[in-house]
């Protein structure tokens, strides 16, 4: 029988070796006892995660909230309705659902799905990414108005908004695009989800979180008392996408129900300075100088892209350090003495895993190559964004009335309350 026992043992060993990865010691040193007394082994319970069906329910509620917002903002023209919906979102998507998954963060999931063949994108994440964009193509930024929990908390806190000068607003509008580009770069290289990691409000909704992020959230809220929606306007990468899609919205909120009486009251209502003035208020440039400037700037854009690509390719070295593999590899190369530092968990775990520095550096080099290409594209993209934003300053559209700027307007409907044009006309 010895050979049989030997066979069984070797088979067991084989199974153990196959199942166990590098650092497992899967052998059972002490076999389970055979109890003589009546002993029943406890069966520990493993609480189930939130049901996937509920995720689809959330999705349905998101669609419902966005549809209602569109209806309230465009048809009902009621600030009150938007306020109610905002408060609902604050509690449902914010305090109840505690954030994840949100449209802002879903950018990264979609980017990762496009880049990483092993990642499977949950359908919910894809829809959460797509739906607000599609809605904005037809109804403007209704997602920002009432559905987004990050917007909701900032919108409700607006107290005494100050007017920011145009140059500041426009030049800071580059930041969301930069953030978007970085987020996509880090997501596609499998490095990090920076939008989620640096979300300032999620900690408030969870009543829990990293101390520094809670502080940041409070700082944003305090700033939000005076600068309306600071995160939405100057940071939010999804807001950048929506400001693009919303430009082409089919039915957008309109300040006046029938015609503008040019009372300028709406401009005092909007905390976001998202209302464009009619031409009558402004000095128009000479068409000829305008065309010349326009052409100069248009020619500048390719130069900016090229410069951006060059600088991007330069920057990939330090950008790639955000990746833990690259960071560890460089740390080991630059500071080999850290190998004997018992407190450096990453290095100690790496050393214990039995991997060689050779394979680690190969992995790191592969990731860095991705970064090189990605950072080049990012640089070029930023060059394009800077160029287009600057060029956009030279486009003068003919306007006769006060109008909501489709890119910047959040459809919060504050202006509608101020418009003196009889509302009954619209309903009539």
């Amino acid at each position: 029988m010895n050979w049989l026992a030997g066979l069984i043992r070797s088979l067991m060993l084989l199974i153990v070796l196959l199942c166990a990865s590098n650092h497992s010691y899967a052998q059972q040193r002490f076999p389970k006892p055979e109890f003589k007394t009546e002993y029943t082994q406890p069966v520990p319970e493993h609480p189930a995660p939130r049901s996937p069906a509920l995720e689809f329910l959330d999705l349905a509620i998101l669609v419902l909230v966005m549809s209602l917002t569109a209806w309230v903002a465009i048809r009902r023209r009621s600030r009150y309705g938007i306020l109610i919906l905002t408060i609902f979102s604050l509690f449902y998507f914010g305090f109840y659902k505690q954030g994840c998954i949100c449209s802002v963060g879903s950018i990264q999931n979609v980017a990762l799905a496009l880049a990483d063949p092993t990642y499977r994108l949950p359908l919910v994440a894809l829809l959460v990414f797509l739906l607000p964009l599609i809605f904005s193509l037809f109804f403007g930024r209704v997602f920002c108005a009432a559905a987004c929990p990050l917007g909701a908390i900032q919108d409700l806190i607006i107290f005494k908004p100050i007017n920011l000068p145009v140059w500041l607003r426009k030049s800071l509008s580059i930041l969301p695009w930069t953030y978007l580009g970085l987020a996509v770069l880090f997501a596609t290289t499998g490095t990090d989800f920076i939008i989620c990691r640096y979300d300032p409000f999620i900690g408030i909704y969870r009543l829990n979180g990293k101390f520094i992020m809670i502080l940041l959230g409070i700082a944003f809220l305090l700033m939000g008392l005076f600068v309306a929606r600071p995160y939405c306007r100057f940071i939010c990468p999804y807001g950048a996408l929506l400001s693009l899609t919303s430009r082409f919205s089919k039915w957008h909120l309109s300040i006046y129900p029938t015609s503008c009486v040019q009372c300028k009251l709406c401009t005092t209502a909007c905390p976001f300075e998202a209302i464009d003035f009619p031409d009558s208020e402004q000095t128009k440039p000479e068409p000829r100088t305008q065309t010349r400037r326009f052409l100069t700037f248009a020619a500048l854009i390719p130069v900016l892209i090229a410069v951006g690509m060059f600088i991007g390719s330069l920057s990939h070295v330090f950008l790639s350090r955000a990746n833990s593999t690259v960071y560890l590899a460089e740390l080991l190369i630059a500071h080999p003495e850290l190998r004997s530092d018992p407190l450096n968990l990453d290095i100690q775990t790496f050393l214990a895993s039995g991997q060689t520095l050779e394979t680690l550096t190969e992995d790191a080099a592969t990731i860095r190559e991705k970064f090189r290409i990605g950072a080049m594209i990012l640089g070029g993209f930023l060059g394009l964004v800077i160029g287009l934003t600057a060029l956009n300053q030279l486009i003068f559209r003919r306007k006769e009335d006060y109008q909501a700027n489709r890119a910047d307007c959040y459809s919060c409907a504050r202006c509608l309350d101020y418009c003196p044009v009889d509302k009954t006309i619209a309903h009539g």
Partner: protein
Amino acid sequence: MDEKTRIKLVSQLMAVAGLFTLIVALLLLLNYLHVRYHDPLESVALTQLVEQFKSNPESETLIRDIRNLDLLARKAYFTSQWQIKTGAFLLLAGAIAFAVLLRIYHSLKARIGEPLISGGNLLLNRIVTQRWILSIGAILFIGAVIGSLVTVDYLDKYQKGELTGEVVAEAVTEETQSDVEVIDLIEQEEEIDSRNEVDPPTIDTIEHTNIETVAPIVEVADIPDQPTQPTEPLVGTAVSALPALNHVYFRGHLGQGISKAKNLPETWDGPSGRNIKWKAKIPKPGYNSPVIWGTKLFLAGADAQGRWVFCFDRLTGDLLWQAEANNIPGTPATAPKTTNDTGLSAPTLTVDNQRVYAIFGTGDLIALTHNGDRVWAKNLGVPDNHYGHSSSLIYFNQTLIVQYDTNKSGRLLGLNMANGETIWETVRKSKISWSSPILAEIDGKMQVITTSAPSVAGFDAQTGQELWSVDVLSGEVGPSAAFSNGIVYAANEYASLVAIRPGPNPEILWQQYDVLPETASPAVAQGLIFIATTYGVLGCFDAKTGDQYWEEEFGQGFYGSPMIADGKVYVMDRGGTMHIYKLDKTPVKLGSPVLGEKSVVTPAFTDGTIYLRGEQFLYCIAAN
């Protein structure tokens, strides 16, 4: 209520809500900072008490203090958790109340503001805006350029070979190595063997002083073309000089589990003192075996207070000297945690004609003269080892060889025996192990053979270069390898007993899965392998095929390794009974003398004499 009083009321409520929120926020902040800097679960006072308790395990007051403090710490931890949770809710409630009141206040006070004055010269404004956009863009780009200028591309440098990622090695002592001639060990051995046969020295015939003078003479005579420095080149070369008088390695000759000693006693009795020549108390505990040079016997002991090397006169049992391994740079302030059955002094020492070398569970490695004066000492880095470091030392040709497999890395080190400098270091793909290296001559070259998970491997004893490796072991490897007739034998519990033909393409000859040791190493001679298991089985196998000849079971398990000497197998069980069998295919028991004390240590032999270390005493056993 008119508007004014309403505004007043709201503003007062607002102030209350604001103050409340602020106070809660401050309390939370205090709580957070307190827990952050004085984590009750990481209480220093508690750790100190537990440390004290370890060295003073009987103290009732310490137990009481620890329990009280532990309860307090846990209470503090959970209370602070509760406070943070409740505080967060209160803070949120306060903030919401404040925000709502703020809105009401604002709407009560609200006046429609002045409309925006549109910005004068539109074109001019836009040009300003444009400039700012470009400036912000430029700031981004310049920031990126500066960032990339200050970063060093280590990865690139590494791949181009400009950086190695290795700690810059201490100067390799090529010169000292070339000074020494490689001595043909086998020849030397044979010469001495023949000499021994002519005049077998025993304890009784050789006088105390005689040995000290004889030993060096024999060696010098054996090495004809000795270059300069008459004493120095002998260091590390005398692997088998006077094999029957000296016992320089753990597990005897080349560390292989065999000894050339003859006329060994088969009967003794510890309690009655029969055939016990002398018995001496060992000042500190340890599980290392004695090593012997001339008339001197060395062993080591350690506890949390200190680590010591002891030298006994092997003829009389007098403690000649003791030396503490202290004041070594790199020694940890508190000794690493070890289990009771390993301790801080499990590795066996090694000795050459000049010095004795000891390693401890703290990673301290020390070299002393035969008179106990320190020659050098260093710390190899505190081993991350959950039982305790236990791999014994060997040496070959001026190089002290240390197998240093920890939870962090698997390393084989070669140190200059004269000064402790690292000559070579081989990092191996190995998990932590507790086995000791052995020496074996394979294809005319001396190799160091190691066992660990997952591999049995052979290294060039001169350079440390890996020559061959077979991934065949698993688990926590304690048993060392054995060697006979060109075949390497290795075994571990939960793995197998395996015979390997070493070489560039090592070949597994056979494997056996039934009787497997946990700590005791195999011993092989005359085509027979002996395996002693922790659960008390002594098995004998055919070295050619792995077929089992016999097995005997005992009540006590085996920790110490079997030794083959004088045509017999000696193996000590944990209760202190030596089981002596004839080297034979059938179990012929020659005796089972008792020591009268627990022992887990492998015995040491010289001609006519066995040295045994019990838990407390060192025994010299010789037939009267």
